[in-house]
């Protein structure tokens, strides 16, 4: 059924079809309407066998879900920006406890200065946390990614975070081909945890590990995260068979010069690539990082142009660091363009300008593109 809905509803409706048992979130722009939609569905009695719990902060919301998930509940939360980093202490624990919480992060810039607008600095900060990160291009993709995220989370036992661009996707109206209950039920079996907390069987999750065994736990986590790549691919493939093939860990089109990005920026990037006859690479899963796939795709091209919306202060664009590393020992020139921070618009012209800089040999290793002239003052 096709319906014109906002990004929020595309998320909430899909979450409903996945039959979560506990939903807990704290409002934060641009996420709020996702939890509002779910709260409304809950109040209308559309969510069976589900508890919607209000929390006093993101920290509490995540903590409630850790407890719920440990008991074997299917859980959902949505947040972004300061909310995500407030959750981070808990979510990193959830990753170590291997709790398959599904999070939708509506990417928003970090303070300070305060910004409610979009960039990827928030989720990129959790890059090394042991949380699976999937970036989506549009609202149809996020709508269809939610059942897949549950399947990925519950088969790998890692928290899984879908990153969708705040405002650019969340607030946008798009005609969405809505999923039906039958399709989701056929694809996503009920959650059967391998081990769960109950009154009959008390357990400690995330117990104390002294130096003689901590490293083994972390090694196991790393190995499972690497193996998760295969499981994610399987899930993507299975979804492709029953619904629509969105591609694997990356989406790639060959070219001598290849543009690389993730999130909603990919839409513009594909247009630019098409008009200028270039290749493109869309990173779908950022962690686990598709190292082999990216290396194989990019190793023989001349230029790799990465559009980054997060900065590792004192180094360069965050995605670029990973792309460069994947290409270690190979010959492409990798250029980083840091664009769109804090909601700065990235029109086609900006991207075309970046590409022409690269093609005419005027590009630097990295560059903030689209900066205005400014004067520094001590206020």
């Amino acid at each position: 059924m096709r319906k014109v809905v906002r990004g929020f509803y595309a998320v909430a409706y899909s979450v409903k079809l996945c039959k979560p048992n506990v939903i807990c979130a704290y409002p934060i722009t641009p996420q709020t309407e996702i939890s509002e939609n779910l709260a409304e569905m809950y109040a209308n009695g559309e969510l069976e066998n589900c508890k919607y719990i209000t929390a006093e902060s993101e920290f509490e919301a995540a903590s409630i879900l850790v407890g719920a998930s440990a008991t074997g509940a299917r859980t959902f939360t949505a947040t972004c920006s300061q909310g995500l980093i407030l959750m981070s202490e808990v979510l990193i624990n959830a990753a170590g406890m291997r709790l398959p919480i599904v999070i939708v992060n509506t990417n928003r810039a970090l303070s300070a200065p305060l910004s409610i607008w979009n960039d990827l600095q928030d989720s990129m900060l959790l890059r090394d946390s042991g949380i699976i990160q999937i970036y989506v291009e549009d609202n149809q993709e996020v709508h269809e990614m939610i059942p897949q995220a549950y399947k990925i989370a519950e088969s790998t036992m890692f928290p899984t975070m879908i990153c969708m661009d705040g405002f650019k996707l969340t607030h946008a109206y798009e005609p969405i081909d809505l999923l039906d209950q039958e399709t989701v039920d056929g694809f996503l079996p009920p959650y059967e945890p391998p081990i769960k907390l109950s009154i009959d069987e008390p357990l400690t999750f995330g117990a104390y590990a002294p130096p003689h065994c901590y490293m083994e736990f972390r090694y196991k986590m790393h190995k499972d995260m690497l193996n998760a790549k295969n499981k994610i691919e399987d899930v993507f493939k299975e979804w492709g068979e029953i619904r629509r093939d969105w591609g694997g860990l990356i989406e790639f089109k060959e070219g001598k010069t290849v543009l690389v990005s993730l999130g909603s920026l990919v839409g513009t990037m594909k247009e630019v690539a098409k008009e200028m006859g270039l290749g493109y690479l869309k990173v779908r899963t950022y962690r686990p990082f598709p190292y082999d796939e990216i290396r194989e795709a990019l190793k023989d091209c001349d230029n790799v142009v990465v559009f980054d919306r997060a900065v590792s202060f004192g180094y360069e664009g965050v995605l670029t660091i990973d792309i460069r590393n994947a290409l270690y020992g190979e010959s492409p020139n990798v250029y980083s363009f840091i664009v769109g921070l804090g909601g700065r618009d990235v029109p086609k012209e900006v991207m075309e300008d970046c590409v022409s800089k690269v093609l005419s040999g005027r590009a630097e290793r990295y560059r903030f593109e689209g900066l205005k002239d400014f004067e520094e003052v001590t206020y």
Partner: protein
Amino acid sequence: MRISLGAVSRPLESLNDKTGTWAVMVPRIDRERCIGCGECYMFCPDCCIEMVQEDRKRYAVVDYDYCKGCGICSEVCPANAIEMVEKVIE
């Protein structure tokens, strides 16, 4: 070595972690002075103090396997019966 998913452990498994090895200073209880009030028992953050009844005398005993030597018992003792002494590792 057992590496459980999510570092899950069952009840009483943590007894294997003898956290008393962290201690530098440990409490020594003077049984003559101890009035058996149980103040140290109430305040011990690691539940390392047991109150023992022997004939008509009641006194505190420290479980050195898990006492980390925080010294709270010594601070709160109203009878000045608990002295913190350097731990001797044999």
